């Protein structure tokens, strides 16, 4: 079951915004502070709460994912807005509503249609392989200033490898990532290693940070944490990746979507967004791709969400606009520097 739509009312930067998601790859684009991460974390927190049947404590998950001061989820209500004493989020799975929550000064509430477990995973922009060792135990026994997405991800990494039919189904995806990595990922004891093809293994700590992200994805595929029917949230996956790996990452995401995993990602990267847009324009993949533009018209005003099947359908694209400004700047310098 895929996320079909999520509506936000008076939630952080959103006054009244709806994301009509596609079952394939959903790409969120917007300047900093336009709510991309907030939207993804909220969707993730709701799916996780539904998955665990947290009928009465949706806001517990929100508190752990967003980490507001004193755990007070009322700090997620949009500030300075008219009648903003309550935030609401409505979530639809497939063709029906699944759950809603409200967070208000007068109290909070939630409702769930029925419990439809939809496995989800949130991968933050920062890699976690190098912090994995001892993190789960430390998080369970100590106050750490990491939000719960890091803990959930490490728990997912801890799962045993697939075998049998499910391992065979995951094999093509895994092979793609191992090719990018140049080797296999091993978890021994509490430490991750990479075994390059035909060479001695080495510790993940010695691996380039961008490759650690690829290694984490590989292990999540190998242990079934990324499986058909699930939802993957990726926050700025381009971080620490050079353009060649970004191109291959796009190919992997397309394969992952074809495999039945719904992908929702936020990006600031020109190559990542353009490549996804072009393969959508030329229908190069079987899975649908949809773009969401998040924009704020003026300081303090609510973020508005638009969507389209390619980047050209978005009225605002800050990535493209900044590249255009750079093009003009470079041309100016070139012209000004010629002929004396």
């Amino acid at each position, binding site marked *: 079951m895929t996320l079909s739509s999520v509506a936000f009312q008076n939630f952080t930067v959103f006054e009244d915004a709806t994301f009509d998601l596609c079952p394939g790859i959903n790409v969120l684009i917007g300047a900093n502070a336009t709510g991309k991460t907030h939207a993804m974390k909220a969707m993730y927190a709701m799916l996780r709460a539904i998955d665990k049947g947290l009928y009465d404590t949706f806001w517990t998950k929100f508190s752990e994912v967003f980490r507001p001061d004193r755990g007070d989820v009322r700090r997620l209500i949009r500030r300075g807005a008219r009648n903003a004493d309550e935030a609401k989020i409505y979530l639809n799975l497939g063709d029906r509503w699944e759950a809603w929550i409200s967070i208000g000064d007068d109290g909070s509430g939630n409702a769930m249609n029925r419990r439809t477990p939809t496995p989800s995973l949130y991968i933050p922009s920062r890699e976690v392989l190098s912090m994995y060792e001892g993190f789960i135990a430390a998080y369970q026994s100590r106050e750490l200033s990491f939000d719960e997405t890091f803990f959930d991800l490490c728990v997912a990494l801890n799962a045993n490898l697939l075998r049998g039919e499910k391992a065979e189904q995951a094999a093509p995806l895994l092979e793609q990532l191992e090719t990018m990595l140049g080797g296999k990922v091993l978890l021994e004891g509490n430490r991750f290693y990479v075994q390059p093809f035909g060479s001695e293994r080495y510790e993940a700590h010695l691996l380039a940070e961008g490759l650690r992200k690829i290694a984490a994805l590989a292990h999540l595929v190998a242990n079934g944490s990324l499986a058909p029917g699930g939802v993957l949230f990726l926050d700025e996956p381009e971080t620490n990746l050079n353009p060649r790996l970004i191109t291959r990452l796009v190919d992997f995401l397309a394969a992952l979507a074809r495999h039945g995993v719904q992908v929702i990602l936020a990006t600031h990267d*020109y190559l990542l967004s*353009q490549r996804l*847009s072009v393969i959508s*324009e*030329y229908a190069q993949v079987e899975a649908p791709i949809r773009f969401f533009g998040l924009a704020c018209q003026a300081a303090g005003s609510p973020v508005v969400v638009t969507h*389209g099947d*390619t*980047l*050209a*359908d*978005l009225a605002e*694209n800050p990535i*493209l606009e900044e*590249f*255009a400004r750079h*093009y*003009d700047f*470079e*041309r*100016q310098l*070139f*012209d000004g520097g*010629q*002929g004396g």
Partner: protein
Amino acid sequence: MHKWDELAAYRDGVHKLQSTSAVDFIGVHDSDPYFIEVKNFCDYRIDNKQRLTSGELAAEVADDVRDTIAGLVWVMERGSSMPELAKLLRQIFAVRSKCKVVLWLEEDRQPNPVDRSTLAGLIKRRMDWLGPHVTVRSRTEPLPGLAVVGAPPGASR
């Protein structure tokens, strides 16, 4: 390919409406309709004219295509004294696939693939109503099957 803005069908048609513009070439290649606008920015600094920003250039190309399509519709409605043009128009309007818009841009500076991609993206955004495929090319990255000879006469700046 036809030099659209030199055809009588254009001059006697939509060109009479002030402030309309047009692309330089129209045609059908491999069953796809092509709209080709040529911009020659070489030696531009010498003429000391104001350069178009990338956004203005994209807007100009988009407007050229829009006005060209309007002009072609006018010609279709009224028939054409040129059988070859009439045939081309029937082909263009019969096509069900996306049309292709080409900005042929010649500059002194070496073409930068990211700049070309950015320009194409800006043009596409201006033309979301039509949803064409867009590419920015020059002699260093020609279109397969398209022969380009010399600088087109009257190529606009």
